[in-house]
């Protein structure tokens, strides 16, 4: 299981890098690109540190440690993920395809 999680972490890390480098995720602004990369690395470390912490503590049935870690690590990962998604244009951004009137 541990090996699988390491493999999964690596695969998702590469997938995230590829996505951020896609033309549709590029903002054209340098400062935003820097923030995106920093947020991505912080999000990734936070999320996978949490996964590792929860996995190891669950193995020893440290119930409180697992629940607190879910709240702390996963909670912060969700917040970071939402901010990152907003910056990358997943959430709340204006649609790039303009609506087409079907009545015309």
């Amino acid at each position: 299981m541990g090996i699988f999680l390491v493999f999964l972490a690596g695969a998702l890390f590469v997938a995230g890098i590829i996505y951020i480098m896609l033309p549709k995720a590029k903002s054209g602004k340098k400062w935003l690109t820097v923030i995106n990369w920093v947020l991505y690395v912080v999000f990734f470390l936070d999320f996978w540190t949490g996964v590792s912490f929860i996995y190891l503590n669950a193995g020893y049935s440290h119930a409180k440690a697992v629940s607190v870690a879910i709240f702390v690590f996963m909670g912060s990962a969700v917040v970071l993920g939402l901010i990152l998604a907003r910056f990358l244009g997943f959430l709340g951004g204006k649609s790039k395809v303009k609506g087409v009137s079907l009545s015309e």
Partner: protein
Amino acid sequence: MNKDVKNAEENRTNKKEISRRSFLLGSTALAATAGVLAATAIPGVAKAAELGYKVNYEKGKPGQWSMLKPEADYGGINVNYVNNNKEWLGSTQIVGEISKFRQYDGGFNRALRNELGPKAKYGILRFDFRRYPLATGTATVQNNLVTLCEGKPAQDKLPIPDPEKMSMNIKDVAYFLNADEVGIGLTPEFAPWETMVTDKPGMIAGKPYEEVCKPNVVSAATHPYTICVSVDKHLETFLGSTGYDGIANSQSNRATMMLSGIVTSIAAYIRALGYEAVASHQGKEYVIIPPVAIASGLGEQPRVPQGVAHPRLGFRHMIACVSTNLPLAPDKPIEFGAKDFCRVCKKCAQTCPAQAISYDDDEIVHNGYKRWDFNLDACIHFRAENEEGVCCAQCMKVCPWNSKEDSWFHKAGIAIGSTGRTSSNLLVKIDDMFGYGTEVIPRFKWWLDWPELYKIKIPTNN
């Protein structure tokens, strides 16, 4: 930092004088001289040379810990090597003359003589006899190995490697025999008991001190080196235990069962090489364990003074030792911030069911050295009279240094906690936040319970 404090600090850490390497070399030369003197003083050595014995071995790298473990395993913590001199034993400050103790005056022996009341006496008398059947089982080995602690060395001394290599060999023997940790130290003068109880039944029956005790055969002069061996008291069992239920005494007995076999074997090995060796374990102790363990580099004295906190194991372990005149290169005592950590943590004091552990920030002077205050009678009363189980190990269970499995975040936590007061405070808060130490995990509660057996039965004619 004023001048006196600075001098004391330099004396303790000895940073400006001796490196670990030069200390080892110096000790090696000293030990080799002692070995030659010892060898020429004992009859039979010439005969061994005439027989033409040879020893074949490969030298390790300079400063290598052992062949099986090239580096000492301190759990990733940076450890400072400190002094064993008249002012410091590791991180323990010596401020006066430390008088030697009589084994007769030990807490459990006083309880056995009814000085702490009949409940304590009969609680201890039945520790290993039917108050918990597994404790009876695990105590069997140590009790039956008592007669093998001492012995006569072989008449013809075998040739042995230089002290540094011989020390590596002794450490490898200990690891081979399943020790969790091992260290070699110079025997502090005050560590061997002044006299030993040789007639326990007589002592319990009320015979006077002179009739039940004899002078100790071990002293720093006759046995200048101590080999200390430690065995973990089993993390999973602590996780499943309340800290003072039925299994508590069996945890000590289990570690001692292994330790008594290890130290008895090492002592017999050394005697077979032609040198003096006496094994000490819970069944029969010739020395007081904490000072020799500190001298052997196994850790620092924590808030609970009977323990020795190891960087990796905390004080969740038992220690036994071999006192010998085999020429060895002793390790230096270590310091890794345990005192600073204990100063702020106090988790053991807060959770001690007997409230025997001090909440004080500062240490007190006790018998010529500094340690945290400790109410030994309260501790013995609770351990002997506990009817929710047998004995107690609550302080070991809750200690943030002790209560962890091997993982990257616990290593990181301990590395952070060993760096000073602020980080120690942070580590304690995180430890509490995650609920470590005080939790009882049902799936690790593997042992059986007989609650009626825990009740202490005092004979009516007492």
